[in-house]
């Protein structure tokens, strides 16, 4: 996820309430920049970015809560729920990626092994679902899973894929509800009030 947008034209001596609204408007736009990916459940990175954007908006509303009207609490609640739902989805994505890695390591041939070696050497995560250090640690070539262990991992992978589908549906239903109630406009109106 890219760093949060730097908001220019902030005035250090202006009332905090005014500046807080400028920041919240930008964070709200950042959130909706990712909305186009909501309908595709396999846009994992983009959905993760949506989650980070929701979190940034939520924290902005919380940090400056004293300067916003009471209605901000409702917005914070919705964002927290959204963030939790997308967080669970991301947890599933990470576990699924890890399980695929564990299961694919032995049978995927030289190209796969080379790719893993490259990932393990990376110092930073740089958009990878799993941190390179974790890949290196789990895929220790001296300790691959046995056939019996692989069976358990395969069953876990299947179960986790089902869990992910359910989690995506929960998130998607909530998102639809927010769209129906015009959540974006609600936040804009809330920010326009004192």
């Amino acid at each position, binding site marked *: 996820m890219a760093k949060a947008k*730097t908001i220019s034209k902030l005035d*250090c001596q202006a009332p905090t309430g*005014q500046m807080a609204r400028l920041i919240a408007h930008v964070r709200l736009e950042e959130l909706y920049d990712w909305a186009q990916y909501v309908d595709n459940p396999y846009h994992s990175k983009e959905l993760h970015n949506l989650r980070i954007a929701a979190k940034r908006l939520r924290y902005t509303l919380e940090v400056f809560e004293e300067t916003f009207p009471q209605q901000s609490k409702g917005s914070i609640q919705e964002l927290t729920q959204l963030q939790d739902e997308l967080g669970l989805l991301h947890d599933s994505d990470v576990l699924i990626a890890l399980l695929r890695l564990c299961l694919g390591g032995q049978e995927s041939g030289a190209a796969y092994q080379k790719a893993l070696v490259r990932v393990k050497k990376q110092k930073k995560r740089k958009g990878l679902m799993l941190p390179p*250090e974790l890949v290196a*640690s789990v895929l220790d070539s001296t300790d691959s899973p046995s056939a019996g262990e*692989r069976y358990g991992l395969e069953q876990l992978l299947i179960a986790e894929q089902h869990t992910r589908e359910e989690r995506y549906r929960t998130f998607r239903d909530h998102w639809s509800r927010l769209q129906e109630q015009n959540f974006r406009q609600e936040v804009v109106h809330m920010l326009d009030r004192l």
Partner: protein
Amino acid sequence: MPIDQSQVRGAIDIGSNTIHIVVAHSSPDDLAILADEVDLVRIGASVTSTGEISEQKRDEALAVIRRYKTLAEQLGAANILVVATEAIRQANNSAMFLEQVRRETGLTVHLVSGDSEAALTFYGATYETVKKADPTMPLAVMDLGGGSMELITAHGSQITWLTSIPIGSGSLHDCYMPSDPPNRGELDAARAFLRSSLLDMQIQQEISTLIATGGSANSLLSLAHRADFLEAAIHHLTIDALQQCETLLTSTPAEEVAERYGQPVERTRILPAGCVVIQEMMARFHLTEIQVSSHGIREGMLLARARYGEQWLGRVQAEVHKMNLDRSEANETTPVQDNEAESSAATTSQNTTTSDNGAYNEPFADYGQKMLRERLHKLLDWRDEVVKNDDSEAVHRMRVASRRLRAILDAYESCCQPRKFKKIYREIKHMADLLGAARDTDVMLQKLQDHYQAVPYEEQAGIMWLIEHLQSYRQQKQHALERYFARLDEGILRKRIESCLPKGAESNG
């Protein structure tokens, strides 16, 4: 004597009826006024009818403010102070409007509470009287605006009590007396409403001198002079003169009165309401005459700025706050605010019960410094628990605290010194990454441990294989956290956080 340009300032107030500017050379106790202009924009009418400042009113207001800014700059004003009052306090889209003013004119508008408005008005309306009078003379000031009325009592320059009531000439006209001219039934309804609203004001001293300020009071004095209800040399309004004004205003259409007596027509429309409010206030305090001052909140702003410097509004707010505290302690058995709040329940809450939204008006940098200190403190509170590693929640909590701290840094980036910001941001991000790696592993481990308990025996071996690998990885992450925190100097981190946001930057106030 040449004018010291650094002491020339402009003061604009955005009220419910008018937008008004005074440019003056100011000292702590005196003003030499260079310009005094007013435009009737009636923002309050839009707020009363729709709850919002309409686009048309926003455009009109912006045009006036731009013109005033040019005027102040032409006169060499070093600062232009701007406040907004009742209509803006009430509007649903006030924040948007204030931001629009800031964006399009570069002027920061301070939204002041009714109490601060009252105190500033008092300073402005009385500075000439107080210079000449007995310093302990009991007096009161009423500022009748378009959307609210402020009443302040004092001994000389020492304020003893103040209140702000959301009743003004504009709002009373819009709600009770919309006909032109207003009819008898409307007049009676307005009077009945006012009497019930004013009845419970628990003023704690006798009032023998009442100074009225605001557009309505000054226009009524002007009308009384031009219509020969008062001699030109008399600068106070008598009960007889007001009765004659009322008769004229309730029997003649506003346009005709305006034309005949050289009054602005928009002002003349709301003048009957202003007349009724002043009459009811005089009746409430058993007075037969009131003085009229052409000075008010704008002059008060300029005097406060000259007295207190850049923190002028903060000082006024602090004084008002202290007075409210004293008052509530003195009235513990019969709180003034409660009675007043009940009396005006038909309109909106009393401003005596509201203070300035301190956080809203606090300078952005000051708020940021406070928040950064608080959040860093909360973050570091978890340090020992994370190192102990008895409870996985500690890592989670500390990671969340690091994210909140980063959210503040993100918000304040453009206000920070770039090099210092980068350094501290990297530091906090590094800490957050270490915590994140540990936390993400904890989440997976928890999930796998739960799953292990729930699956058939033949699936457990694979789960345990993964758990063991992850536990080993988690242990590496714990060591990394321990090494990091062993090296972390909290004092240096605090200093870096505190120094990345500048202090005391110049403002236009």
